[in-house]
């Protein structure tokens, strides 16, 4: 197994709102990226060994029966010293990324705040609504240890530290989200163009689009369409709108709303997208969001969701344990429940006819020519898979996702 060497941080994409990153910031991000690669590729596979060689035999000796629940695996793994080291390092590395990214952004607070204010002033493409409240499922904990999340302000009316998410994304994903962090959006475009070659949407909604990092590829791929990036978090929208303006987009609006119940008129979109959003909501909210998609779509319109795949009845307990890990320890609590939900039943209950349902897989689409030719990237959610690939091969393949959706019957 050859070790992956990730691309260097200076190969990340820059736009008009990218904060200044000094030599030492970039060096720190290079260290953290390599640390993440080492943890994913070298340390993480060992927790399975610790399970097979220590935790499971101890459990069998004590109870006489094999594990029947992945939560028992979780609780009994907690006593294993090897697992403890991996888990502690993983949480700590995420915290270090957040700290480093926040420092970059916050020490330039005044300059960035002014740039964002100037870019947004008087623009009707940014529509904030202070009657929109942050639902409890977003405010009870900060998802993925991101202080303030996508909605927290530092001074009222500002963009919080949302930009720090973009600054540090490369580190956690070891470049597998492409140079501009938009690998998921690029993958969605590829998927839609292949699956629906004649589809020419006029109005697209990215529900839970945050600052639009994965929305803009949709606007670029369909320049005649109008794209609405919608989120509950005003800071994310303020930063996203200024960012999109700086990149020259004129067909994108940023609108504050709750996707469970918006003020958009019925049948006003041809395509509604969610990207890594549903698993950060709640069981009720998912139902409400899908119903809202049914209301907002034009007949024949497309609904598409990008997530990690949910569990199948035959998904092994060990895989459930590693995949629910982010729910328990990366502050994404709904993910454990979401993993058990049947997305086809959910779509059917929301009024999408079963004969319009579809699903598929997509890999992050990594922009050619930006990373060094020798560089490899590592999937955050299945580091073992990437470890088996040659560096040349993996350089073109990023994080893997599951897509599911339906069309609204005419």
């Amino acid at each position, binding site marked *: 197994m050859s070790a992956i*060497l*990730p*691309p*260097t941080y*200076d190969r990340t994409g820059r736009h008009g709102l990218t904060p200044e990153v000094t*030599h*030492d910031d970039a*060096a*720190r991000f*290079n*260290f*953290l*990226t*390599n*640390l993440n*690669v*080492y943890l994913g590729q*070298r*340390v993480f596979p*060992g927790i399975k*060994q610790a399970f097979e*060689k220590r935790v499971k035999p101890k459990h069998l000796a004590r109870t006489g029966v094999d594990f029947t629940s992945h939560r028992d695996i979780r609780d009994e793994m*907690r006593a294993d*010293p*090897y*697992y*403890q*080291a*991996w*888990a*502690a*390092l993983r*949480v*700590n*590395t995420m915290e*270090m990324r*957040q*700290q480093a990214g*926040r*420092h970059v952004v*916050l*020490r330039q*607070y*005044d300059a960035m*705040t002014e740039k964002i204010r100037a870019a947004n002033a008087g623009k009707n493409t940014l529509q904030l609504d202070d009657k929109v409240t942050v639902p409890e499922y977003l405010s*009870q*904990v*900060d998802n993925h*240890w991101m*202080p*303030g999340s996508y909605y927290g302000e*530092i*001074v009222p009316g500002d963009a919080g*530290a949302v930009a720090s998410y973009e600054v540090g994304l490369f580190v956690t994903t070891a470049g597998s989200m492409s140079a501009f962090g938009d690998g998921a959006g690029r993958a969605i475009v590829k998927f839609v163009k292949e699956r629906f070659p004649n589809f020419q949407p006029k109005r697209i909604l990215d529900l839970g689009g945050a600052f639009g990092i994965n929305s803009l590829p949709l606007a670029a791929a369909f320049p005649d369409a109008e794209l609405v990036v919608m989120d509950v978090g005003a800071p994310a929208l303020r930063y996203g709108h200024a960012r999109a303006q700086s990149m020259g987009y004129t067909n994108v609006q940023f609108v504050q709303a709750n996707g469970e119940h918006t003020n958009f008129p019925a049948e006003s979109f041809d395509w509604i997208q969610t990207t890594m959003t549903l698993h950060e909501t709640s069981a009720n909210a998912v139902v409400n969001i899908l119903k809202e998609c049914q209301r907002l779509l034009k007949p024949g319109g497309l609904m598409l969701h990008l997530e990690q795949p949910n569990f199948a009845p035959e998904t092994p307990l060990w895989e459930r344990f590693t995949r629910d890990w982010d729910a328990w*320890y990366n*502050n994404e609590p709904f993910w454990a429940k979401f993993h058990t939900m049947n997305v086809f039943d959910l779509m059917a209950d929301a009024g999408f006819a079963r004969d319009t349902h579809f699903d598929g897989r997509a890999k992050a689409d990594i922009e050619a020519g930006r990373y*060094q*030719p*020798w*560089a490899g990237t590592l999937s955050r959610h299945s580091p073992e898979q990437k470890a088996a690939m040659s560096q040349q091969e993996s350089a073109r393949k990023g994080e893997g996702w599951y897509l599911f959706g339906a069309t609204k019957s005419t």
Partner: protein
Amino acid sequence: MTNIDVNALANAKAKGERPYFFDDPAVERVLSITMAVAAEVAVLRERMDTIERLMESGTAVTKASIDAYKPDDNAARERQEWHAAYVARILRIIHQELQALEDESLNVSSKKLADAQADQ
């Protein structure tokens, strides 16, 4: 200038109970501090590397030339290889614990051998 405390805000605690994985939370604290220091050592090392490369190419070493430096493909590869070797070096004990787990024969106790022989 907005009066914000950058260092405190950069360090802000995310909302949610932090999981401590070691039996003693003090171990977690020491690991966390050690890894932060390890990162800063890597930063210094990369800065030294940049200075060396600037000097080799006859470029004046200034704060500005250091911040503007972009490694070419070869230099970038050498620097990433250094990071990979460095991370492996500081996490050596974890690598060895895994090896010991995979191969029981690496765990023969010299103390037990010594006692057994001495008692014969």
